[in-house]
């Protein structure tokens, strides 16, 4: 009982704290511009229920759903598997949801089920991790891949110097979004820091314990590594914990992308100097705005639209870039609670 109260208070604080975020776009328009007369059913399907990042999306989505007259459901599989997500999609199709929003465990396996949904007139909005383009109406990209690749490199480059030996700790070899980021960061690194070197790429399977073990092994087996880029939530935490356990704070810089709650202690102890991400709570809000607009047929695959207080966004071939990278550091991390 006390548990829930404490947690409730925590999420309230988080919602308030998230307000001062700037999106670089002018505030314009309100929910009033959007036709909310007809209630619609929208589902949000994360890769797996039970991870804070997805919970943060849900938090924002809940808020927006209320304002947009959306009957909102947050549901997902208990294992990070495509089959689990497909089963959930099928049930949502049978229950005649108006919009399905999802971040995919992998882009290809989910496509047939989502195409079936679209055939039945259900709008599909993907966010965070995309599905095949023909299987969704819109994709909300967290940040532009090239910009994020740059931010990831810069999160360690400033502290390791331009000719450092870098290790990468990712999730799995075939993780779509991680591979996009690794591609982008490699390209940026080659262009900007030609002497920087990626000496090893390891995988933590998005598991905290395997990421920690991988982090320890990277540092032990490659003592000359001075920076670890870990573009995965569990991986960044694992890498930072490894640096801490080996007492290499200050000698090895860790960068990557995690929700602020999970890296707070490492940012404060100086192991992670900078960590780019985006505001997951606000992103959840945007997902609901796009869902509402898509259900209303009030949004074009190419064009601009206004999402209440979030500002205006541009869709290009159905892809909507949510924000520029938001860099967490010791100075600002306490403003974000998710």
């Amino acid at each position, binding site marked *: 009982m006390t548990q829930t109260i404490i947690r409730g208070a925590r999420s309230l604080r988080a919602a308030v704290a998230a307000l001062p975020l700037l999106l670089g776009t002018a505030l314009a328009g309100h929910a009033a511009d959007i036709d909310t007369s007809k209630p619609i059913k929208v589902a949000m399907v994360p890769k797996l229920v039970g991870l804070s990042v997805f919970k943060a999306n849900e938090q924002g989505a809940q808020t927006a759903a209320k304002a947009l007259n959306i009957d909102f459901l947050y549901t997902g*599989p*208990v294992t990070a*598997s495509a*089959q689990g997500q497909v*089963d959930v999609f*099928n049930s949502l199709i*049978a*229950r005649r949801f108006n919009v399905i929003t999802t971040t995919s465990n992998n882009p290809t396996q989910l496509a*047939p089920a989502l195409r079936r949904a679209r055939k039945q007139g259900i709008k599909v909005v993907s966010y965070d991790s995309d599905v095949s383009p023909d299987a969704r109406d819109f994709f909300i990209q967290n940040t532009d891949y090239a910009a994020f690749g740059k931010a990831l490199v810069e999160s360690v480059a400033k502290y390791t110097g331009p000719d450092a030996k870098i290790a990468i700790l990712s999730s799995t*070899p075939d993780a779509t979004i991680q591979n996009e980021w690794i591609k982008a960061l490699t390209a940026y690194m080659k262009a900007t820091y030609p002497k920087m070197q990626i000496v090893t790429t390891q995988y933590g399977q998005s598991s905290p314990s395997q990421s920690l073990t991988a982090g320890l092994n990277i540092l032990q087996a490659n003592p000359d590594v001075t920076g670890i880029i870990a573009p995965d939530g569990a991986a960044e935490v694992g890498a930072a914990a490894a640096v801490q356990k080996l007492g290499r704070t200050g000698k090895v810089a860790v960068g990557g992308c995690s929700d602020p709650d999970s890296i707070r202690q490492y940012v404060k102890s100086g192991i992670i100097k900078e960590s780019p991400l985006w505001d997951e709570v606000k992103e959840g809000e945007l997902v609901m705005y796009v869902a509402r607009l898509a259900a209303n047929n009030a949004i074009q695959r190419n064009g601009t639209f206004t999402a209440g207080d979030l500002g205006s966004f541009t869709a290009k071939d159905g892809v909507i870039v949510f924000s520029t990278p938001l860099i967490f550091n010791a100075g600002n991390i306490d403003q974000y609670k998710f």
Partner: protein
Amino acid sequence: MSGGRNDVTARRGASRRLPLGNWERALLVLLVLLTLGLVAAVPGFYPGFGDFLALSENFLPFGLVALGLTTVILTGGIDLSVGTTASLAAIVMAELWTGLHLSIWIAALLGVASGALLGLVNGLIITRLRTEPLIATLATSFIYGSIATALAGDNPPSGFPDSFNRLGTGAIGGILPYQIVLFGVLAAFFSALISRSAFGRKVVMIGYNTEAARYAGIRVDRIVTLSYVISGTTAALAGIVLAAYYSAVRPDMGSILLLSTITTVVLGGVSIFGGDGSIAGVVIAVLLLGMLRQGMLIAGFSDMVTTMVTGAILLGAIALKNLFAGRGTGLATLLRRLRIRPAATT
């Protein structure tokens, strides 16, 4: 793994076992009741005959795996590598299709053949190296998983021809899914194989008592090896069907098959110690668990609740079965057991 043989057989002597088919009949009644209940109570569960049948496309790959796994479990063994075998076979198919530009159907055949080969490796490790099936197939599942990941690379193939994808999601005349046809034919074949062929009788005999089977002149190693080849083949077939269903392959796509399939086989009335069980029971269990899961999800229950209910049903069903068979010390038998000790067997 194959524990409890002695006490089980001991108690079997004391109390009459269920007459053949009771378990299957009970499952069948349950399946009918459940389906009718879901059709009546859950809106969206029965949107039309064709769509209703299409629900089975979501779980019949589990059924394919279950058929082969049943054969292995009947011998008293287990195959923990079915999941990675399915993944690896699907990836072999996809890589042959993209890499060597083979026809997708020939690639699929080779994929199934690769599953048979993986099963053969399992069988040989178990029989030649005298390794327990559990540990042997656990080890090979790690190895097959690595190979699958390596072959798949960082961007596994997808987008197979529509003619192939129909195997996973197509239906004859828009009504009867190909998956049902495939599963139906195979189920009939396995049923005949297990209960009507010499091979099937040997499988059951080995599972019932390996030593006795050996004394009776059965070439145990050969039959056991063959059962793993069969299990590898059906797992691979499931992998191919999943590939068609998703029109994509991933190195981890089979990982969800394992635990669910064991649950299905056991719920179908197959003794985990081997030597007892029928394909009919397994087939009904496939439909029962599949319909239950689809129905619960459509009714709005979360994946979590659905998973928990499946676990509870497994425990409840087997406890109930034991109760009627006079095993265990639950309720009815408790009093009797307090007075009568099981007969000495050794």
